[in-house]
């Protein structure tokens, strides 16, 4: 599905507190919607400033944990008691206490895979030779807020708001993908580094 593009304003900061303050103001006071921020490290509190929900990734991991426990236990019981029961030292075919170490390990193993795969799905991550990024500096030392400009707002209005809040640099970009709420940036990575 082709992304629906809305032009967006991008403000650069060099301090995470500035970004957090502006983000919260833009969302709560100004009522701007579908904001996104780009940061070089996970900024604690930014998810609240953006009004994000708690991630569902770890729920998938926990389901994997329980499924791994169940499958591991059942597999050991099935092989030892049903598929080919072997009498080992007169122990019961389902020697359940001896199953526990492997049951634990299979649970953790499946949970780990589920965790990472859920993260890849949630963030749309997959190996690709070319990555579309908003700026080369967001993975280095810049904090960026992206404000989509909607029908009822003007570009000047949004830029004025960002300028008022001491953005180091403001840039208008082509659009934002409304479905995945992700910035669509037409210029490929070869673009000159943004010098904010």
């Amino acid at each position, binding site marked *: 599905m082709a992304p629906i593009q809305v032009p967006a304003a991008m403000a650069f900061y060099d301090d995470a507190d500035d970004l957090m303050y502006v983000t919260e103001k833009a969302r709560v006071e100004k009522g701007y919607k579908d904001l996104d921020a780009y940061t070089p490290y996970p900024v*604690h509190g930014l998810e609240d400033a953006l009004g994000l929900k708690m991630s569902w*990734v770890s729920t998938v991991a926990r389901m994997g944990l329980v499924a791994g426990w169940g499958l591991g236990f059942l597999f050991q019981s099935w092989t030892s008691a049903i*598929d080919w029961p072997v009498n080992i030292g007169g122990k019961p075919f389902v020697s359940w206490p001896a199953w526990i170490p*492997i049951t634990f390990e299979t649970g*953790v193993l499946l949970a780990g895979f589920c*965790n990472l795969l859920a993260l890849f799905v949630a963030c*749309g991550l997959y190996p690709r030779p070319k990555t579309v990024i908003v700026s080369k500096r*967001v993975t*280095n030392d810049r904090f960026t807020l992206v404000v989509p400009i909607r029908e009822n707002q003007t570009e000047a209005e949004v830029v004025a708001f960002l300028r008022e809040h001491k953005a180091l640099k403001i840039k208008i970009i082509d659009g934002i993908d409304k479905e995945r709420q992700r910035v669509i940036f037409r210029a490929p990575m070869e673009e000159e580094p943004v010098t904010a």
Partner: protein
Amino acid sequence: MSIALEPEENKLLSSKIKMERVTEEVLAPMGRFPSLPWHIAFGLAQATALLLVLPVIYQLFFGLGIYGINNPVGWGLFIVNFVFWVGIGHAGTLISAILCLFRQNWRTSINRSAEAMTIFAVMTAGIFPLIHVGRTWVAYWLVPYPAERALWVNFRSPLLWDVFAVTTYFTISLLFWYQGLIPDWATARDRAKNRFFRSIYSVLSFGWTGSARDWNHYERAYRQFAFLATPLVLSVHSIVSFDFAVSLIPGWHTTIFPPYFVVGAIFSGFAMVVTLLVIMRKLYNLEHYITMKHLELMNKVILATSLIIGYAYASEFFIAWYSGHEYEQFQFLSRPFGHYAIPFWTMVICNLVVPQIFWSKKMRTCIPVMFVVSLLVNVGMWFERFNIFIISLHNDFLPSSWGLYIPTIWDISYTIGSFGFFFTLFLVFTRVFPTLAIAELKSTLPAPSTGPKIPEAAHHAHHDDDDGSARHHPDSNPKEAH
């Protein structure tokens, strides 16, 4: 330069370090041609690794008879090395997972290299059971798969639990490590000048963009991995110790083994981290990231675990006496006074006496001292494994089945060679991977003197950096602090 970047009082890192500088300094070695010291070290490591390959090739033709293993002592140096190397790995997971849950910010400077050490140590460890099975080419029989023989593996055997524990540990450590690497590959990608490297790093980064929406998921997944890896790391050496504790051999059949093995693993693992980091911080000019405060904290962990180990040794001897079990008593008398008294006393001196030097602050902040101590601790821990496995097996119940174990030249060859294999992997790591966790390190940098530009933002953010912790580290929750 490094003197100017000494961290201030009550801070782990200097507040003069800017984020851009972290990116530059950590990623610089990846784009440089390796230096001469690196080439020399790599050549030495490669040559030493050959000592691991030669016995294996020789064994393919002549079988296990080339080694010193015999009837009472069937396990030999293979299992000594296996348990030793699995133990080395434990410090990496402790630093990455347990210290993450305990919100210890000092882990961010060392977790990447410690986790790499974990992965390489487990790889090294995994070689030994594969050699020891003799017919290495059918080692896959250890895995339960639907074979034409239709017979399954015996799930009641602790040796099979080991297969699952070690492979799960390796896999989860690798996944956890890779998740931490993703944002750093992205940083490397955006810094790369060369189109070829940019593509490689783009593939490795899985297209990471640094969006706060992605960080929200990332943090959750990272914390979840820490929650999974914490019981896992405790389970691995516990299960390794079951190989012994579940048997009836005097000296093995004790309930103290799981915690005793885990603590020993952390003790030797931290010593190995100190050995590696003391060299790495010097060669790659990382002294202002891996500061004396980090090293001192690790030395404190070594001292603490040394005391716990001493307690475990004492309790083993006490229980041998208190149980009234004559085979157990004989076993524990033969350790300090029997055929293998020299390994026993080496262990006691290296593990219990030498680390006590760290009670002195001057000694635990002295690089040459901690380097020597960390090496001796690893010698001691290797001999601890030797004592547990060899001494317990060589004199068990019936004097008619007693025997001595004398390693052959091939046993010594693969033991030394395993260090070459490990260091080869680690040296490659320091060249091609970001050796510090860049994103995590940035989140723990102390507040710069300039601070936020918006005056209200400073007030708004509830700064809490008096204890040297960072402002935006996910672990320092401003709501709780308020």
